[in-house]
Structure formats: C-alpha cells, structure tokens
C-alpha cells in the first residue's frame, strides 16, 4: 500500500510538472504555471505543494498525506508560442482540479494535446506574411513594399522552423535572421521590387520583436515574480538589441557591396 502511495504522489507530481512545462513552452507566464502546479497538487490530495520556477526551470516538491516527500525538476530549453495549445492545457488543468481524474488518464490527455505539430504550417506562414505586409503599410509603405515584405516574412518563418535547433543561441539567431531580412529588403529595392527599403524592413522587424515576452515579464513582475519578470525583461531587451545589430549590418555594408 505504501509503495503504491509513493507511486501515486510521484505520478501526480510528474503530471503537474509536465503540464507546467508544456504551458511555459507554449507561452504562459510563470506565475500562471506555478499556480497550476499548486492547484493540481491540492486537487490530488497532497498535503503540501511547493513550487519554484524561473524562466527555464520548474522545480516542485509535494508532501503526500503520509508525510513522504517527492521532488522533481523540469528544464525548459526552447519555446514556441502556441496559444491554442495553451488554452487546451488550461482547460485540462481546470478539468483536473474539478473532476480529479486518474493521473494516468490525465496524462494520456496531456499527451494527446502535446503531439508535435507539422514542421511547416501554411496558415502560420500566411500569418507571418499578412503581419509583415500590414505593418509595412501601417508605417507608411506603399502596396509594392507590402508585397515585397511578404517573401521576406516567409523566409523568416522558414528559418525559424527549420534552421533553429536547440543548441543555437537565441540572440545570435535573431541577429542572423534580422541581417538576412535586411539584406533581402535592400536587394529587393535595388532591383526595383519595392520603393522604400526602410518600410519593408520595419514590416519584418515587427515579426521579430519580442512583444509577448515583454507583456509576460510585466505581468510576472506585477504578480510578485520578480526573478522571472526581470530575467524575461532583460532577455527581451537583449533580443531587441540583437535585432538592431542584425539590421545594422546590411545597412552599414550596403555601400561597399553595391
């Protein structure tokens, strides 16, 4: 009986942490994740649930009804924003707290949500193109500029979904993407496809700017999660600087190239 109990709290803990990890990966704030882990712990009758998380780690300890302690850790190495998945995960955690299904059953549901999607998603690619084209016009570009920004947006999407590996530094990769986009915009305008290189670049900058990260960091700091908030804020400022460096390179060297 004791052994099954131990297995039970282990299962609950690993379920809660895997759910939390998936939530962080699809773009949730840390305090929401901590909240979820604690609620699941309580829902399954743990006496105490303690959780600590910063942007790349979730660490939790549960004490079950017999006073036995279990700890586990999850490392989060990469992120890909997916709000549809996040909503499903939210629903799942709400259902777990309400109906308290068997941990194995809940895990099966979690796994059915977390099936890796296709590498190339045409709708997301169109979203990149529509976003960049709209913002090119938004900031004062012409229609031709909007059309010119579309292939660049598609290129950014392809780079993000195919070249990016777990090992690549995010800052370096962002700078690389920005440099490629800047160079492409200057080349397009040079060959007459587009009127204003700056507007095309701005349209594509909007795709790379870490807006969601900034929003999340503000929310985390507000909820008292200073550590995650500050780290994320710093990361988003650094990413913005990487974008600036990336776009600066082609502008700087354009005179030498042509």
């Amino acid at each position: 009986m004791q052994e099954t109990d131990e297995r039970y709290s282990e299962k609950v803990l690993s379920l809660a942490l895997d759910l939390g990890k998936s939530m962080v990966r699809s773009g949730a704030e840390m305090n929401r994740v901590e909240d979820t882990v604690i609620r699941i712990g309580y829902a399954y009758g743990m006496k105490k649930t303690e959780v600590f998380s910063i942007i790349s780690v979730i660490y939790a300890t549960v004490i079950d009804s017999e006073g036995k302690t279990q700890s586990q850790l999850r490392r989060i190495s990469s992120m890909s924003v997916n709000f549809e998945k996040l909503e499903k995960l939210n629903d799942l955690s709400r259902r777990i707290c309400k109906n308290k299904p068997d941990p194995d059953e809940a895990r099966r549901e979690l796994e059915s949500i977390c099936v890796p999607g296709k590498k190339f998603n045409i709708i997301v690619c169109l979203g990149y193109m529509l976003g960049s084209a709209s913002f090119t016009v938004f900031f004062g570009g012409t229609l031709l500029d909007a059309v010119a920004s579309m292939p660049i947006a598609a290129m950014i999407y392809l780079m993000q979904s195919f070249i990016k590996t777990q090992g690549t530094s995010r800052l370096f990769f962002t700078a690389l993407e920005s440099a490629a986009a800047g160079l492409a915009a200057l080349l397009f305008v040079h060959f007459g496809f587009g009127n204003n290189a700056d507007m095309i670049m701005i349209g594509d900058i909007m795709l790379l700017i870490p807006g969601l990260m900034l929003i999340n960091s503000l929310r985390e700091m507000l909820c008292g999660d200073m550590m995650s908030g500050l780290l994320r804020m710093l990361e988003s400022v650094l990413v913005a600087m990487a974008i600036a460096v990336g776009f600066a390179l082609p502008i700087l060297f354009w005179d030498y190239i042509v």
Partner: protein
Amino acid sequence: MELKQALIIIITGMLGTVGFSALFRCDKRRVICNALGGALTCLVYVLCCRFLDNLFWQNFFPALFATAYAEAMARAMKAPATPILACSIISLVPGGKLYYTTYYLVTSQEELFHTTLKETLLVAAGLAVGIICISVIVHEINRHKFKQIFDVE
C-alpha cells in the same frame, strides 16, 4: 492626421492583428475577437494622436484600452487574457522607431539617434505603464476572489 491616413492605420492594424493571431497559433474562434481588439486599439491610438501631442500619453491610453478589452473579453469567453492582449496591442509596438534608432546610429547622425532612442523608450514606457495600470486592478480583484476560496477550504 488626415482621415484617409487614419483609416489606413486602422485597417492595416486590424489585418496585422489577424496575421499575428495566426503567427501565435491562436484558436480559430478567437481571431475575430482579436481583430476587433486590434482595430479598436488603433482607433483609440488615432484619436489620441489627434488630440494629444505627448508620445507617452499617445501610447498609454491605447495600451490601457487594449488591456481592459483583453481582460473583459477573456472573462466573457472564458479564455486566458494574454493571447488577446498580445495580438491586439501588437500595432503599438515601436518597430518603426527601433528601426530608425538603429539607422541613425549606424549612419552616425548623433542628434537624430538621441531623439529617436528617447522616443522609442518613451513609447515602450507608455505601453508598459498602460498595461500595468489595468493589470494591477485585475490582479487585486482576482486575489480577493482566491482569498475567499481558500478561506472556505
């Protein structure tokens, strides 16, 4: 600002929001809600640009509106607020200013670099303070509710 320019901003802002809804892989049912949020935020922005001449307030009020809209819609549709906020506020993000800051830096136009850098930071601050103002209120209300739940337990 002319009417035509204002209309262009609102329409492209809305289309941009739809684009970003796909980019963030939002639920298909939320796209209309996001697009409406994006269009209304741009409308508020255009109005603020017309009547206010301070860059901070020009971005503060639209951010305030977008956050309130996202929180209200989240309650109504029983969905998290962050996705709606992230999509509807996207057109306020100072991408253009970031570009010009970089551009003036690398073309060594000191004066212009300083002013645009200051403007970029001012816009970002306006957005941040706008988001915070509403979020604080919502956070306090939520905490109050949780307290009651835990008291019962």
